[in-house]
Each structure stands twice: as structure tokens, then as C-alpha cells.
């Protein structure tokens, strides 16, 4: 358990010392969301309908951007190899890195989301639903994305490749997340959607770290 906390602490410290890796995806998120109204025109009617989809797609892309660099620096300076070789269970290290990664990407975007929801004139029920959906959906996306990041370690053009590998896997989260927001905006109950998102998260927590760990071993094995 110590190793888990130590990894979280270490990664968070690294992120604080090199904030560009965190801040850039968030800025990207901000810009992408602000571009949509400019492309569509300023009438409030359409905004309401597309708000959920726009925010979700922006979150998805920003998560991908931040995932891309998740293992990169540790891979390049050899720290990752040491982690694999050390006696500590790799799965806990991976889990720690994932939690740290989510704290600085998914959680921050969840906290930022009410702001954007306001920009899209979403009702207060909708704002709450967007935040809840992101809270449950972003960890799933970080977990799935880490598999792609681990598989493409050390490859050129890894970023585009991660997008191709991982985006199709995000579809269930996207569908459930937007449907949940739509239900909330429409005034109906969205507990069911939340339970489904939660179930998806639990399944992914159970399986994705194992896949990520195995992928790291594969990528480092040459």
C-alpha cells in the first residue's frame, strides 16, 4: 500500500514541478469548447442540445492529450524500467500513476465543467449531471487510455496512434455520459445512467490496470 501512496505522491510532485504537461491539455479543452459556439453561431437554442456532446468530446480529446505523456518521461529517463525491475508489485505502481494522472486531468476537468455548462446555457440540473457524469466517466477514460499509452511506449508518432487505438473504446462512456446529461436536461431521472457509468468504471478498474501493466512489460521487453 505504501508503494501506491508513494507513487501518487511522486507523480503529483512531478506534475507540480512540470506543470506544462497538465496545463496544456486543460487549455486545449478550454479552447476546443470555446470554438464550438463560434462555429455554430450564438443562438442559445442549439447550445442546449449540443452542450453535453461538445463537452464530452472535448474532455475525451483532452484526456487523450494528457494520457499521451503519462509514461513518457519515466520511459525516457529509464525510471519506468526500474519500476518494472524493482521488487514492488508493478500493478500498484501503475495504479498509483493512474490515480495521480486522473487527479490532474479528469478531476480538474470535472471541476471546470460547470463553467462551460454555463457558457452553453445549461440548466442547473444539467450542470450537476454533467459534473457527476464526468466524475464517473473520466477515470474510465484515463484507465482505458493508459493501455494505449503503454502499448505505444517509445514509438514515433505515438500521440496519433493512441487516439486511433483508444478512441473507439471511449464510445460507451461517451454514449452513456451524454445520455445522462440529456436525461437531466429533459427533467427525467438519471440514476440509471449513473449506475451504468459506475458499473463501467468498476469493470475497467478491475481489468485495465492489469492490461496496462502487461503492456508496459511488453513494450519494455525488447
Amino acid at each position, binding site marked *: 500500500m505504501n508503494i501506491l501512496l508513494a507513487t501518487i505522491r511522486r507523480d503529483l510532485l512531478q506534475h507540480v514541478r512540470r506543470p506544462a504537461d497538465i496545463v496544456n491539455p486543460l487549455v486545449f479543452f478550454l479552447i476546443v469548447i470555446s470554438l464550438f459556439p463560434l462555429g455554430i453561431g450564438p443562438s442559445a437554442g442549439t447550445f442546449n442540445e449540443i452542450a453535453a456532446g461538445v463537452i464530452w468530446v472535448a474532455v475525451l480529446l483532452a484526456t487523450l492529450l494528457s494520457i499521451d505523456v503519462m509514461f513518457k518521461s519515466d520511459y525516457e529517463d529509464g525510471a519506468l524500467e526500474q519500476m518494472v525491475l524493482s521488487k514492488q508489485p508493478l500493478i500498484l505502481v501503475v495504479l498509483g500513476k493512474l490515480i495521480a494522472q486522473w487527479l490532474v486531468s479528469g478531476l480538474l476537468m470535472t471541476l471546470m465543467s460547470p463553467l462551460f455548462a454555463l457558457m452553453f446555457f445549461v440548466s442547473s440540473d444539467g450542470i450537476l449531471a454533467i459534473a457527476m457524469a464526468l466524475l464517473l466517466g473520466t477515470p474510465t477514460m484515463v484507465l482505458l487510455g493508459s*493501455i494505449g499509452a503503454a*502499448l*505505444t511506449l517509445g*514509438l*514515433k*508518432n505515438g500521440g496519433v*496512434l493512441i487516439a*486511433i*487505438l483508444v*478512441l*473507439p*473504446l471511449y*464510445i*460507451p462512456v461517451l*454514449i*452513456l455520459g451524454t*445520455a445522462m446529461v440529456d436525461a437531466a436536461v429533459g427533467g427525467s431521472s438519471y440514476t440509471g445512467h449513473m449506475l451504468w457509468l459506475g458499473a*463501467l468504471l468498476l*469493470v475497467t478498474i478491475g*481489468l485495465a490496470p492489469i*492490461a496496462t501493466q*502487461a*503492456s508496459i512489460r*511488453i*513494450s519494455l*521487453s*525488447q
Partner: protein
Amino acid sequence: MWNWFHKLGSPKTFYAISGSLLPYFCVLAGIMLVAGVVWALGFVPPDYQQGHTVRIMYVHVPSAILAQSSYMMMAAAGVVYLVWRIKLADIALQCAAPIGTGLTFLALITGAIWGKPTWGTWWVWDARLTSTLVLLFLFVGVMALRSAMSGKASAGRATAMLVLVGVMNLPIIKYSVDWWFTLHQPSSFSLTEKPSMPPEMWMPLLVMVLGFYLFFFCVWMLRIRTEILNREYRSRWVRELVQ
């Protein structure tokens, strides 16, 4: 049994056995496909609703079925490779990907062509078409990773891992797309789910599906055999065979 399995897993034995079986399979696949196409184009009665466009079903449905099962076969090969490290499984996975991509593409295109006269548009975000599109993305991902890693020793295992992750997600994606579709478009006319298809319609479909399966195996074997020669070119049997 285990011994036999292992023997078949050796490239040399596989090359010999597949070489002797392949001609028969090719002939059988050709007969099935020609018979199926002639039957489907000339002898199937036109549908009371769709008229002659129903004939598109006889290429669309088999290619959609094959698209999915080729991904499943890839996943099976991936498991075999990751667990037992049988090189042949890696070759099989690598060779199935382009064929599966082609068939998924065919399923999408014929779906669109079928959709135009029946639905009035080329593309409908129908559950089936959408999940086939996602399947195409998964295939493309596998091929992209494979080509990006070409030459690396870990390429095979990384691709196998990706296919496994994909196959675990496939049912979730499928259900979520189904659910999303019913949510957005409650009752609609479905193409293939007829209450009951009369035998004169499903018999040729069965022939076509079998033909597609046989065809898939034939071209799969062709590719696998070539790749075996490529990888084993230093071994004596390949040298004797080639020269």
C-alpha cells in the same frame, strides 16, 4: 491431442498440411460463392417490401458476420500467442487483420448501398451500421499499431494485447450502441430482422455465409503460408523449398 496440437503449431508441419488442403478448400469456396451469387441474383423471389434490393442482403449479411468473426478469430489467435507463445498464432493474427478490415469495409459499403433505396439515405446511424463502423476503427487500430511497431520483437505481443482489449470492449460497445439507437430512434424498420424468412430466402444466405467463411480461410491460409516462408527463411526446409 496436446502433442498433435503442438505439432500443428510448428510452422513446417502447418505449411505441409495447409498446402495439401488448400486446393480443395479453394475449389469448395469458389463453388459455394458462385452458386450462392447465382442463386441470390437470379432465383431468390423479390421481397414484397424491398423488391429486388433484398439481393444486396446476400453480400451484406455474410460480410458483416465475417467481419465480426474474423475479429473473434484474431482475438483467439492473440490469446494463444500470449499464453503459449506459439509463433504461428502471431502470424495468423497478423494475416487476419487486413482481410477482416476489407470485409468490414465491404459490410459498411453494402449497408450504405442497401440503405439508400430502403431508408432513402446512404447512411443511417442504425445500431448495426454504427457498431460495424466501430469494428472498422478497431481493425484500423490493430493494423496501425502493427505497422508502427514493425521490426520490433514485441510487435506481436503488443498487437495481441490490443486485440484482447478490443474484444473485451466489443460487447460493451455493441450494447451501448444498441441502447443509444433505441433511445434516439424508437421504432424503425429493421433490415434483416424479418419475423421469419422463408426458406427460399435463407437457404441462399446460408450458402453465401458458408462461402464467405471458406473464402476467408483460403486467403487467410495463403497469407499465413507466405509469412511463414518470410520468417523461417533460414531453416533448412524453406531453403530446400525455395531453391
